């Protein structure tokens, strides 16, 4: 017989909601770093430092968004992480669309 997946106790849901609100500014800072790096990439002025900052920011977003239930956010951030780490290639347009979708997902949860 299949078992139902465990459900989140209301107290924990509330606590997670509080943590989301608490850490939203940091999450948005990471997203802003990614957005700035995409703009630099599009204009051909992405520096090595900026690429590394974007890589770190994407890595952290990939690690945390799914923990707050934003699994699509983790997928998008992980793709961006691989591109900024130069472990996969993508066009600037593709990267830009991932980061825009990430912005939408995060804005919707505000």
């Amino acid at each position: 017989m299949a078992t139902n997946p465990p459900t989140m106790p209301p107290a924990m849901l509330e606590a997670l909601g509080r943590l989301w609100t608490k850490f939203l500014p940091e999450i948005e800072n990471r997203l802003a770093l990614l957005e700035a790096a995409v703009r630099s990439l599009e204009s051909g002025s992405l520096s090595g430092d900026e690429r590394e900052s974007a890589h770190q920011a994407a890595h952290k977003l990939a690690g945390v968004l799914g923990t707050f239930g934003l699994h699509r956010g983790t997928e998008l951030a992980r793709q961006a992480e691989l591109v900024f780490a130069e472990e996969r290639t993508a066009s600037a347009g593709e990267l830009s669309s991932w980061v825009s979708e990430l912005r939408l997902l995060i804005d919707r949860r505000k």
Partner: protein
Amino acid sequence: MPRRILIIDDEDDIREVAALSLETVAGWDVIVASSGAQGLERAAEHQPDAILLDVMMPGMDGPTTFRELRKNPATAKIPVLLLTAKVQGPDQRRFADLGVEAILTKPFDPLTLASQMEKVLGWD
């Protein structure tokens, strides 16, 4: 007596969600450290039943922290689980070669993190 877990992670959000999860779902005592160096001190001082260790941290990273834990007789036998957002095959193999108890991936599910740990540590 509740289990005592040390979480070593430089990211405040991950540390707090993991602590909330382990305290609320499993009723464990949680100690936190925000760097590898602080983690080494807290591990020796508090003798946790297990350590949840982030991989990518500034300064002393997770693998280096793990090796330092193993060098110190006071912390050498504490089970260590790596918690990482690095999910690519080569990274996972490199981490497995370290000799940690298990590798757990970020993002984790706050509802099942404790049971994942129990399973790999044989506590279930």
